[in-house]
Every structure is written in C-alpha cells, then in structure tokens.
C-alpha cells in the first residue's frame, strides 16, 4: 500500500493549539456525610433552642402518676379523690371490681367461712401464671395502689393456707390522677369542693423517666446544657490559649519560657482526674447548676494545646519576610497581629475548635455521668444517662435516648472537623488525608 505523497507535506500547526491538561478536580468538601452532619448540627441546635418554645413542658416536673411511661399522647384522666382507707360494707355474691383506674383497683369478694386469709396475686392478663404476690388479706376486700398502668391485669385470689385458687378476674384500669397530684401540678386551682370528673393530661411523645419527668423536655433542656458546655468551654479555652500563645510567641525570652513551661506541666496532668479534682474544689453553692465550675475547670486544663499551636505559628510567621518588612515599615504590633498573623492562624484555630467541641461534650457527659457535672434540677445528656442507668434493665430507653443524642452530636461535630481540616490542609497546599 502506498501513501499519497501530499500527506507527507509539511504542515505547521497553529502556534498555540496545544492541549492544556486540566488538573484532576479536587473532590468537593461537601460530601453527603458532611451535608448530613451539618444538617444534624443545625437540627440539634434548633432542638435545644426552639424546641422548648414549641414543647413547653417543664423538664423537672415529676408526674407521680406517670412514672416510666412509654410514649403516650395527650389523654383524659379521671380525677380520684383520696378517701383514706377503703372499707366496703355488706356482702357481695361474686367477685366485684369496685373501682379500676391507675390510682387504685378495688376488689371485693364474698367471704368464705372456711378461709381465714386470702392471698392476692396480680399478673399480666396476656401471660399465663399468677404473677406478683401482692398481699395477704384477712378481709374479703383489697385495694391495690401499686404502680398501676393502663394494661390488662389479672387478679387471682387464693386461700393463703391451702393455696387453693378461689377467684380470678381481669381488669384494665382507666387513666386517673389523684386530686392531690392534680392540685400539685396546678391542674385544679383553688379549693373547689366539686371536682371536675376528668382532666386532660399532657402528651409524652418519648415517655417519662423513672421520676415521671417528660423525656422529650429533658432531652431539650439537657441538650441545651451539653451543647452550651460543648461550645462555650472550647471557645473560652481556645481564646485563652490563643492569647497566651500569641504573647509567648511574640514576646519571646523569659515570658515565652514561663508560659511554655507552665503549658508543659498542665499537659502532663491527667486531664479527667484533674477535671474531677477542680470540679470538687470549685464546688457548687446552693442554687447553682454547676456549669460554671465545669467550664472553669476545662479552661484551666485545656488551654495549652492551642497556646502551643499559636505560638508555633507566630514564631514561624515572625521570620517571614513580609512580616519583617511590615515591622520595618513601622506597623504597630497590633496591626501586624491583625493583618498578617491572624489570617494565617485562624484556619488552624478553627480546626482545633471543631475538634474540641466533641471532646468537651464527651468530658461533660463523663463528669455528669459520675455525678460531678451539672447538678439537679439542671440536667444534661450525661446526667440523663446517669439517671437512666439505674433503670437500664427495665427501661433501656431512659439511658439510650440521651446516649443517642450525645453520639449523634459528637459524630456530627467530628465529621465537620474532619472536613474543615481537609479544607484548611488544602488551602495551605498540603494534601488531605
């Protein structure tokens, strides 16, 4: 095969018709996880700030009649007057349920001459078996006031001596509230002699805790504390660290030595141990919630890392020709700090800050969990976990819900911190992890 000669004719290309190789595009920092984390942080902030306005229940109100409830909606409750000891008169032909509500269940049965003492059992109507032995009664009636809820119960009455089963009845108590508690909660005002027959009880979308407090309201209030400590403490100790680091780096000499040796010592201290110690030492006066000593203790113990960071940066930047030229041109120290040093240090500080937040949330949770954090009636997610661990086996929800909130917030802040670090690394020409 021959090739036509004209195809070999020299042909000068246009001068700049050259391929420009575009660099591989950097991956966007807005990965789905980062977006999700941002949304989570925003939602959490809304939850603790706007939440209490939309959900005006108090986090510290205890509902004696509604302890450890599951999720409930708002519902009517019968008001029950406390009448003292119940003593029915007369005889009944068969087992009679005189009253069945969550305040009390009253049973009255025919007296049998051959039985001296009656053994009462209460079990779930859904399970077989007698269930919990309630009491031994010598009278043919009994009033049950033990932790009743709106569930199907089966009461069984047996001869306590022979064990012979005599009666059995299934009861589903009706929601009720005692007059005493209704007055306590302000649902009945004034000393009216005629009581309303029913009262609306508030909803508990996440149920109530072991002391009958609304968990949703507690999560909001606790979150406000946890996030407040989580954001304000790092803000304060990083600011302190920046100031000390800048002074050390800028002044140099004896001042630098003093600050940095102090930082060495503080870093060498076991952190949580000293958090506990300082927290004890600062103490809590009556009526205080314990947040201030907590933040103060963190301030004392956590400043060195950012101080070292800033000092290192200041020292590195001080040697830069453009800072030297600014010095020579007679710029004031403050102006140099603001114009040249701050913009370079700020990204690093921001990254440190974003990683300090989950750390602070963890610290607060740990201290509150061992009872060294906020003190009641204030609460935090860590303190809620501390309350919840006592009912872990019967009502895991009490502990797992605040734990979930701690985990989500820590995770979200960690992801944001990672993203922020990648961006700052990229800006300074480094390569992200």
């Amino acid at each position, binding site marked *: 095969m021959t090739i036509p000669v004209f195809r070999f004719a020299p042909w000068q290309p246009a001068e700049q018709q050259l391929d420009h190789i575009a660099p591989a595009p950097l991956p966007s920092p807005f990965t789905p996880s980062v977006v999700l984390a941002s949304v989570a942080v925003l939602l959490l902030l809304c939850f603790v700030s706007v939440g209490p306005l939309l959900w005006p229940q108090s986090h510290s109100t205890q509902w004696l009649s509604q302890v450890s409830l599951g999720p409930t909606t708002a519902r009517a409750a019968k008001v029950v007057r406390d009448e003292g000891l119940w003593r029915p008169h007369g005889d009944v032909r068969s087992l009679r349920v005189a009253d069945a509500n969550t305040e009390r269940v009253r049973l009255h049965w025919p007296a049998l001459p051959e039985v001296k003492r009656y053994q009462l059992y209460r079990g779930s109507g859904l399970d077989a078996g007698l269930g919990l032995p309630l009491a031994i009664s010598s009278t043919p009636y009994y009033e049950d006031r033990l932790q009743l809820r709106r569930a199907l119960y089966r009461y069984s009455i047996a001869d306590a001596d022979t064990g012979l089963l005599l009666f059995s009845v299934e009861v589903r108590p009706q929601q009720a509230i005692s007059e005493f508690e209704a007055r306590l909660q302000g649902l009945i005002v004034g000393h009216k002699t005629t009581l309303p027959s029913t009262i609306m009880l508030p909803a508990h979308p996440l149920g109530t805790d072991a002391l009958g407090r609304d968990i949703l309201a507690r999560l909001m209030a606790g979150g406000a504390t946890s996030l407040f400590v989580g954001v304000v403490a790092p803000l304060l100790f990083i600011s302190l660290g920046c100031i000390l680091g800048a002074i050390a780096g800028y002044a140099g000499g004896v001042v630098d030595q003093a600050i940095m040796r102090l930082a*060495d*010592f503080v870093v*060498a*201290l*076991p*952190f*949580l*141990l*000293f958090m*506990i*110690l*300082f927290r*004890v*030492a*600062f*103490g809590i*006066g009556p009526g205080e919630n314990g947040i201030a000593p907590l933040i103060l203790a963190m301030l004392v113990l956590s400043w060195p890392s950012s101080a070292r960071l800033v000092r290192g940066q200041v020292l590195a930047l001080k040697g830069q020709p453009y800072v030297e030229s600014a010095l020579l041109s007679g710029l004031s120290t403050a102006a140099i700090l603001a114009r040249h040093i701050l913009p370079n240090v700020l990204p690093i500080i921001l990254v440190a800050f974003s990683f300090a937040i*989950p750390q602070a949330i*963890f610290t607060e*949770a*740990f201290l509150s*969990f*061992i*009872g*060294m954090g906020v003190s009641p009636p204030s609460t935090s997610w*860590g303190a809620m*976990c501390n309350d919840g*661990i006592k009912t*872990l*086996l019967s009502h*895991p929800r009490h*502990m*797992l819900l605040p*734990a979930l909130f*701690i*985990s*989500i917030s*820590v*995770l979200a802040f*960690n992801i944001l911190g990672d993203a922020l670090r990648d961006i700052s690394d990229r800006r300074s020409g480094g390569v992200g*992890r």
Partner: protein
Amino acid sequence: MLFYIARRLLFAAFTIWFIATATFFAMHAVPGDPLTQEKAMSPAVRAQLEARYGLDKPLDEQYLLFLGNMLRGDFGISFTQENRRVNDIIREHFPISATLGLAAILIALVGGVAAGSVAAHFRNRWPDRAVIFAVIAAISLPGFVIAAMAQLLIVRLNSAVDSTWLPVAGWGGVEHVWIPALVLGLGTMAYLSRLMRASMLEVLSSDYVLAARSRGIGPWRLFWGHQLRNAILPVVTELGPSIAAITTGGFVVELIFAIPGLGRYFVQAVQQLDYTVIMGTTVFYGAFLVIVVMLVDISYGIIDPRIRLTSGRRR
C-alpha cells in the same frame, strides 16, 4: 539517651510534685472544711477529729506534713470509712483496676494494630470500610454508653438462653475480666486502629516497602519484617495517653460492672467528698500516669533506632 532519660525523670518528679501540691490546695480551697459536711457534732468531738486529721495546724504546716507523708507513701486515713487507711484502700483495690486496665490496653493494642493493618492492606475495600465504620461508631459513643449497652446485651443474652453463662457484673474469675476489659478497651482500640491505618498506609506507599518487594520478599515476611515495626512507631507514642484514657475510663466501667477496683472507690470518694481518699488516690493515679507516660516515651526511644542512637529528643 541517658541524658534524655535523666531529663524525663526530673520532669516526671516535678510533675508529681505539682500534682500533689495542686491536689492539696484544691482540696483546701473547697468551701467550708471537710468536717462541716458531717452532721452536727459537739466542739469536743470536732476538736478531736481535727487533731486526728491534722486540720488544727496552720496550712503551711499541713502542706509540709502532707508532702512528707506522701514521700513516705502514707496518704492518711479515710474520712468516711473510719479507721481505713488510704494506703490499704489503694493496696487492696488497685491490683483489680490494674488487671482490668492491663487486659484492656492489651486488647486495645492488639485489636487496634490488627484492625488498622487489615484496613490499610485492603484500602477502600470492604474490610477497610467495615473497620472505618466500627471506628466511627466506637469513637462517637461515650465509654459508659458502651459499657451499659454491653451489660444490657449480656442480660438479654442470658435470658434468651435462660442461664447466666456470661456474668453481668462482679469480680472473680477470668470470665469477669474480659467483657469489661473489652468494653473499656474499645474506644482506645478504635483510636489506635485509626492511627495504625494511617501510619500503615504511609508505610505501604513508602519506597522501602516497594524496594523490599522488588527484592522478592513475600507478603508475610514483608509484613513482620518491614511494615509492622515502622507502622507501629506512631502508635507507641500514643500509648501513654491511651493508658491515661483507659485508667479514667475504668472509673465508669468499674462502676457499671460493679468491679471493686480503685476507680470505683475514687468516684465514690469524690461523690462522698472523702478528702483524704480523694487526695491520696489523685496523687497516686497522677504519679502512676506520669510514670507510665514517661516509661512509654523512653521505650519508644528504645524501639526507634533513630532516637536510641542520636541521644537527643525527638525532632
């Protein structure tokens, strides 16, 4: 190297002194004095108690006395558990905490190194993703939540098989150690495996691993001889802080699993404001951690020839 060790020793001694001093003055800065917490007592009883705990002396004398006693290893008598010496409490309960902590750090180290190595070798494939997911889950859960959930799980498991083949709490045989130790080590394990993964990735992309492969060295020999030792160095530096984290994490794990370790006593003492026990255990724990961190740093110097042979400090 000797100079380096001497310097570290001096620094550690200073730090322990600092911890003791800070503890002493922190405890005396507490509003009121320890005895006012107790129920009302007659002035005579009070005077007697003050004399017993040395509270009647001036502060500087008390401080010197405290330092002197501490040097002799005497931390005084408990406030709430009458007649119980703090030394005895430490001697009796610290071995339990130490056993638990040692088991936890071993689990964390071995697990973290293994998980990190596997993740790095299978970068961006499913073992890597699984490790990353587990790490993220573990570092965003507080230690006490992991412990509580583990306990809940054991209870549910026991009731499912209708026997107690895993103890829920308490202390005794080996079966009581490994679950709390695993729970305690989990957070640190996650942290170490993240560290290990990063450093192993760096090693894997290094020239010397490529060069070793170019000499025909097989994967296992490469791992044990060339990759592991280099990748583990940054992990060893973090061992000191990890031990500190596990020690303090032990407080809650001991509390939740009802383990009679020193950590539980410390938390109880803090809650009951038992001043001598707080002071004693804080100084003890502080000294322990400072010494452990120092030992880890020194051993790091021995592992890494670049430091061992050039005597100076790192970098």
